[in-house]
């Protein structure tokens, strides 16, 4: 039995069995890029939280630009028809959409397996119960720490931690599987052991220990978030120990911070290879950060093209597909089909050209410089956050962060 889906967000982690490669072998070259098994639907960019590492673009889609209920339903039907099996309802905060139950019900009706990726703070027990009745298959809740002082400060919302704990309990009471998603950085890594225990106590099935990936909002907050090398070594030790100890009780997915890795992550499993997401306004994107790359035009579900056409034929998807676009040192690299050159968004953010080798790779001429900069930032203790919002961000006031 092989696992043929790497979760879009954790695809950066080591993929021991890439079953997609097995499926691809049976196909002709023209069919290599089959329709992804799972699609991320970012229903809205609205969110009551203001996490400084938010993976949404810095230029957020306004509520008025969001796809309507009918448009999302049409998208879900089309996705199921072309062979997508799973839908991840995400955001922003997907529960900020008043039509979420209706959309989950529609996903169920057309045969899609639905995952909810939520901050949980807007949910009531009745709402969660309605989602379960509509066929919701899995709930993933983000946590910013293991206790309210750190967690509420990172989220930029009072009482959020307590609410999340409550919703996690309801999730299990409703017999839905629970994933705890913990985004880790310099200012909460000391809580990792306690977060792991919290996930066990909440009866979660899975824990994602996801180190911050530095583009968009997180890049703006890099100095406040970048862990030290010592922290990362400790983190890896803790995760390894816990994964062994909790085998069969809690599955742990670990996303390493690529700044401290030797090889870049196989971002999105390779550009346009096994993943796409749909933005609140309906853009079909190779990655949730792709709109940060200026100069790439992304097609919309509101265009005259079908989603399958956009996936197969649009310029944005084909630009960095496979290995043909690669310059040196990727072009002749023995790892080019292992990591597909790393992350295009990171290459763009750090080098100004999305076609360059991801500087996370030690073979990138920029790696040394960027790694040293990260180390300096981690040591400087500039801890103030720039909170994520529609106004381009708000700097944390002095004193708020003084622990």
């Amino acid at each position: 039995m092989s696992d043929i889906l790497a979760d879009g967000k954790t695809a950066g982690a080591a993929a021991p069995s890439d079953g997609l490669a097995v499926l691809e072998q049976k196909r002709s070259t023209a069919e290599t890029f089959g329709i992804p098994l799972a699609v991320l639907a970012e229903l809205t960019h609205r969110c009551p939280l203001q996490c400084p590492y938010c993976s949404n673009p810095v230029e957020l889609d306004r509520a008025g630009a969001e796809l309507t209920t009918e448009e999302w339903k049409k998208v879900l039907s089309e996705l199921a028809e072309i062979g997508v099996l799973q839908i991840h309802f995400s955001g922003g905060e997907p529960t900020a959409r008043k039509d979420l139950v209706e959309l989950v019900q529609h996903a169920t009706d057309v045969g899609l397996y639905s995952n909810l990726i939520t901050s949980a703070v807007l949910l009531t027990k009745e709402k969660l119960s309605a989602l379960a009745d509509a066929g919701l298959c899995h709930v993933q809740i983000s946590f910013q720490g293991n206790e309210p002082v750190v967690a509420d400060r990172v989220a930029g919302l009072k009482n959020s931690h307590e609410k999340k704990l409550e919703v996690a309990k309801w999730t299990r009471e409703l017999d839905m599987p629970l994933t705890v998603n913990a985004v880790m950085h310099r200012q909460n890594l000391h809580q990792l052991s306690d977060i792991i225990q919290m996930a066990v106590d909440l009866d979660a099935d899975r824990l994602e220990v996801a180190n911050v990936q530095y583009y968009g909002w997180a890049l703006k907050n890099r100095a406040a978030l970048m862990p030290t090398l010592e922290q990362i070594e400790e983190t890896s030790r803790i995760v390894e120990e816990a994964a062994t100890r909790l085998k069969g009780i809690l599955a742990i997915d670990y996303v390493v911070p690529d700044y401290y890795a030797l090889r870049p992550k196989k971002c999105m499993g390779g550009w346009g290879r096994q993943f796409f997401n749909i933005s609140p306004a309906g853009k079909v994107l190779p990655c949730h950060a792709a709109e940060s790359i200026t100069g790439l035009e992304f097609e919309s579900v509101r265009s005259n093209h079908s989603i399958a056409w956009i996936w197969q034929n649009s310029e944005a998807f084909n630009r960095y597909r496979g290995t043909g676009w690669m310059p040196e040192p990727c072009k002749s690299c023995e790892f080019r089909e292992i990591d597909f050159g790393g992350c295009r968004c990171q290459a763009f953010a750090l080098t100004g050209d999305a076609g360059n080798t991801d500087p996370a790779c030690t073979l990138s001429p920029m790696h040394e410089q960027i790694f040293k900069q990260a180390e300096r930032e981690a040591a400087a203790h500039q801890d103030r956050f720039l909170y994520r919002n529609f106004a381009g961000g708000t700097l944390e006031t002095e004193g708020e962060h003084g622990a």
Partner: protein
Amino acid sequence: MALSRNISVSEASRPKLPRHAKLKFDETRQVWVILAPERVLAPDEIAVEVLQLCDGVRSVGDMADQLAAKYAAPREAILTDVVAMLQDLADKGFLTEAREKTS
């Protein structure tokens, strides 16, 4: 109520797929798949046949009887294989056990 983790599959077990694991034929790719939280698994033909028998009513022993008769194969060998395969699925969290009704 939380389902127990780490079920141990034996001849007497009456396993079934939990609510969050769905066995489905993927028309686009013409393969059977198990859909689970953020995972898609591709069971082989034999696994599919066994999983279709996992209804929470049949015991693993019943399944071995049925398969031994169908394939005219030694029951003990089949039982060993079925238990190993189901235990692997259970360890991954894709199999649970029907609970005894409290009398």
